[in-house]
């Protein structure tokens, strides 16, 4: 009874997906081998796999992925932490919300990559403007989810805490944070995906290393299988993080009958 229900569901849910991906890869492989012309633009998965292995052995894979991850993580933390704090404040206080909401709506609509040139003039050509763009991309989804998370907490729960004389810090840690945690976690997921997307995109336009830069270089030199190798690694990063987050969510939100992530 006390164990969270459906512990096996995650594991059980993985296998159909694995099966579908395996079938698609196998079909692709057969097709690329059968039609030589296709393999120019769509190299066989085995060829792409071999490239990844080679890059892994000579260390290139880790340098490239490391550069991307570093930008991603710095931007994610730099944008995510303020998003969390401001989101809690906006969710809790109608006044803060009224003051900041229009600004958020306006800024959210701007494609983050579009401000990169301005940031490069302001912050120089190094890592700073890139990390700032990633931070902006991570900021908004987490802000909006956190705010929504706080707002859907029933006023009754605040009333109960108040009735029993709970102090403000206790209300924060025992009501506000756990009450909004499911939405915060789905916000983290959205923010990560947005940040990964933007990191690779800006590496394509403005970086010398990282997965995006590798993709662009491979394209310009027509080494299509290397392009696919970097795309595959990018997508594995996404799958890996989302998987980890689903597991963490189960641990952190065991009361949620149907986890949102």
């Amino acid at each position, binding site marked *: *009874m*006390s164990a969270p*229900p459906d512990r096996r569901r995650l594991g059980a849910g993985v296998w159909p997906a694995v099966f579908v991906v395996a079938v698609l890869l196998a079909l692709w492989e057969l097709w690329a081998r059968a039609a030589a012309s296709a393999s120019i633009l769509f190299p066989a998965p085995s060829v792409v796999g071999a490239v990844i292995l080679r890059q892994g052995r000579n260390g290139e894979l880790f340098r490239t992925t490391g550069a991307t991850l570093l930008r991603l993580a710095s931007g994610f933390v730099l944008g995510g932490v303020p998003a969390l704090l401001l989101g809690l404040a906006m969710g809790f206080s109608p006044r803060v919300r009224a003051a900041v909401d229009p600004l958020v709506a306006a800024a959210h609509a701007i494609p983050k990559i579009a401000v990169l040139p301005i940031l490069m003039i302001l912050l120089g050509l190094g890592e700073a403007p890139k990390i700032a763009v990633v931070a902006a991309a991570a900021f908004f989804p987490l802000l909006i989810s956190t705010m929504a998370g706080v707002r859907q907490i029933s006023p*009754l*729960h605040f*009333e*109960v*805490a*108040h*009735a*029993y*004389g*709970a*102090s403000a810090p*206790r209300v924060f840690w*025992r*009501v506000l944070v*756990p*009450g909004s*945690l499911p939405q915060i976690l789905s916000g983290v997921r959205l923010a990560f995906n947005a940040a990964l997307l933007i990191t690779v995109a800006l590496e394509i336009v403005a970086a010398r290393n990282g997965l995006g830069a590798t993709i662009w270089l491979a394209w310009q030199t027509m080494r299509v299988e290397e392009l696919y190798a970097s795309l595959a690694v990018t997508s594995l990063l996404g799958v890996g993080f989302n998987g980890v987050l689903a597991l963490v969510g189960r641990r952190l*939100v*065991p*009361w949620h*009958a149907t986890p949102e992530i």
Partner: protein
Amino acid sequence: MSFQCEHLSKSFALRGGFVQALEDITFRVGEREFVSIVGPSGCGKSTLLKLIAGLLRPSAGSVVLTAASDDERPASALVFQEHGLFPWMTVLENVAFGLEARGVGRAERHERAMAFIASVGLAPFAHAFPHQLSVGMRQRVGIGRAFVTDPRLLLLDEPLGSLDAQTRFLLQEELLKLWTRSRSAVVYVTHDIEEAVLLGDRVLVLTGRPGRIQGEITVPLGRPRKLEYAVDERVSAIKWQIWGMLEEEARRSLALASREPLPAEEGAVP
């Protein structure tokens, strides 16, 4: 301990105007007394308990709770109409929350909460979450959260209102046992006339909105109360008497309801 409400009134601002919810409520509750309050729905029963608990400020009048200077117990604890358990806390944490809010250390509050949980037979569910419990179990957890703080005055807002008749009957008995073992005085709000009589030492009958006290009845039954009292003729007589007080009011609100299918004030407030 002594508790009294003096000329208590409450009105709410609503869409430019206001709703008078309670008017001139005066009553007292003695040491270890069990006072039931009945009244038609919307007459301000929940509002009255929130005023007593200090969650709302009276528009007029006052709530006075005095106690000996060495009485460390919290003044009151409220069991909410919709239990209000925290879905993210286990049964144990929920029951212990009132103590946690008062700064009682982890070991002690868990021990006291566990003792309650075991006494109502919920020990196997101590580490379950509210969504894993039946409605009746949840309501007992909500009651437990209030009981374990050992308040001078225990306020219960239709705690058994959402239960089926059988569960309700059993929980009425359980509630009386818990109260007998405790040192608390009780104000018990219900819309069920029989329940008010079977549980209370006295029954206060409120009028429809704005709620005023229209009568007070002392229940001549001994303690401990037994289930058989449900078929006692003294109980029937009192039920009939209370119904007489409420009937006209009930008929009027029914007539009103059929003329105005959606009273504006009712619709506006959850």
